[in-house]
């Protein structure tokens, strides 16, 4: 057994241990924090499996963003007077056997699937063979934007639907109640003036290198959301009651850019969703990044729009 496998075993054991803690824990806040840790370890295991694109996305979105959303929701419940410690949980007799069977089933399916010999012309192999024709160096970006562009476009539609759904159930929002961070303290202002520009820089970098190296619109959008979350938490931007034209345009930018370029290929006599060139890749990715960042920040802030404080 090499050191590498040993690391993998340790990581795997930590994953199982952490998930057990999260499920059986008593204090909800502690379990939320452990869940974020779990996400980071998942990201590490993806890095170990040789999938840095997915690792980046998991660290930024799966652990960071989901964690931030959950902590914010927890805080909203606490602010409304919900009990901190979750009420006594039911322990159905069948829970344990059902869970064990589910786990065993997954293991059996996976182990038998691993034994299946890989066909020489598997879709993933074809992607690598045809990648040079796309002008992209990163096969995952190639799949997302060129080979399976329709999937990615519809993914933006899912994000939009989630935002519209959240707006529909917004109810009587209480803007101005959640940002309790004192902006006058030196730490917060230093955080804002250093971290916010750096996140912008990292997001732009991730977006641009995404064509050839690990990165892309989703990772960049998630990092940009981090900047948005920071601005919301420090009260630099405040929730607004109604979405203006700019907010609406930015929310649909990714979907619209993808759809317009995809459909305009028909007018040029090509198959739909064919991208006319690298400029289209950058345009779509930029639009997607902005849409993702805005959508997720609005979902985090639980508001229809954000803007600078109005005096």
């Amino acid at each position, binding site marked *: 057994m090499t050191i*590498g496998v040993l690391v*993998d*075993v340790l990581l*795997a054991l930590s*994953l*199982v241990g952490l*998930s057990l803690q999260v*499920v059986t824990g008593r204090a*909800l806040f502690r379990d*939320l924090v452990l869940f974020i840790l*779990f*996400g980071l370890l998942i990201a590490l295991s*993806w890095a170990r*499996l040789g*999938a840095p694109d*997915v690792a980046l*996305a*998991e660290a930024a*979105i*799966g652990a960071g*963003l*989901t964690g931030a*959303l*959950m902590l*914010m*929701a*927890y805080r909203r419940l606490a602010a409304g*007077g*919900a*009990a901190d410690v*979750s*009420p006594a949980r*039911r322990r*159905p007799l069948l829970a*344990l056997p059902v*869970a064990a*069977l589910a*786990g*065993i089933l*997954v*293991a059996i399916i*996976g*182990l038998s699937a*691993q034994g299946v010999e890989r066909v020489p012309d598997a*879709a*993933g192999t074809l*992607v*690598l063979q045809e990648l040079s024709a796309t002008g992209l160096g990163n096969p*995952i970006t190639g*799949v*997302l934007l060129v080979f399976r562009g329709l999937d990615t476009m519809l*993914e933006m539609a*899912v*994000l939009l639907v*989630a935002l519209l759904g*959240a707006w529909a159930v917004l109810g009587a929002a209480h803007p101005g109640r959640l940002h309790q961070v004192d902006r006058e303290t030196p730490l917060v202002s230093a955080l804002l003036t250093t971290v916010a520009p750096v996140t912008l820089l990292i997001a732009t970098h991730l977006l641009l290198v995404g064509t050839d190296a690990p990165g*892309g619109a989703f990772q960049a959008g998630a990092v940009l959301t981090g900047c948005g979350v920071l601005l919301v938490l420090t009260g630099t931007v405040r929730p607004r009651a109604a979405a203006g034209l700019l907010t609406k345009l930015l929310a649909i930018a990714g979907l619209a850019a993808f759809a317009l370029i995809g459909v305009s290929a028909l007018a040029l006599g090509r198959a739909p969703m064919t991208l006319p060139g690298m400029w289209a890749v950058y345009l779509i990715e930029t639009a997607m990044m902005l849409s993702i960042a805005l959508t*997720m920040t609005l*979902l985090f802030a*639980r508001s229809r729009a954000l803007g600078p404080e109005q005096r």
Partner: protein
Amino acid sequence: MTSTTVYLLAASAVFGIGVYGLIVADHILRKLLALNMMGSAVFVFILTVAGVTPEGPDPLAQALVLTGIVIAVAATAFALALMVRMFQETGLTSLQGHDGDD
């Protein structure tokens, strides 16, 4: 035992634990935690069974997982919005209602 098998077994265990958490959890946030862990387990599962190419795990599977991560966070965000609204309306944080106090 190879690394992929190690992660496959871990993903299976986490999936089972997630199912257990989903069943026994009362608090909606806890249910969402369990669901998200099951999702992560499925993503690891997909990558470990997809097979490898000379340039790492199958790129199609990686793109699929990447898409899945984003969809999962969108669904979670919507579920959290629903939960907060339900709490505002009813003061409840579980789906059981008041009659299940045992």
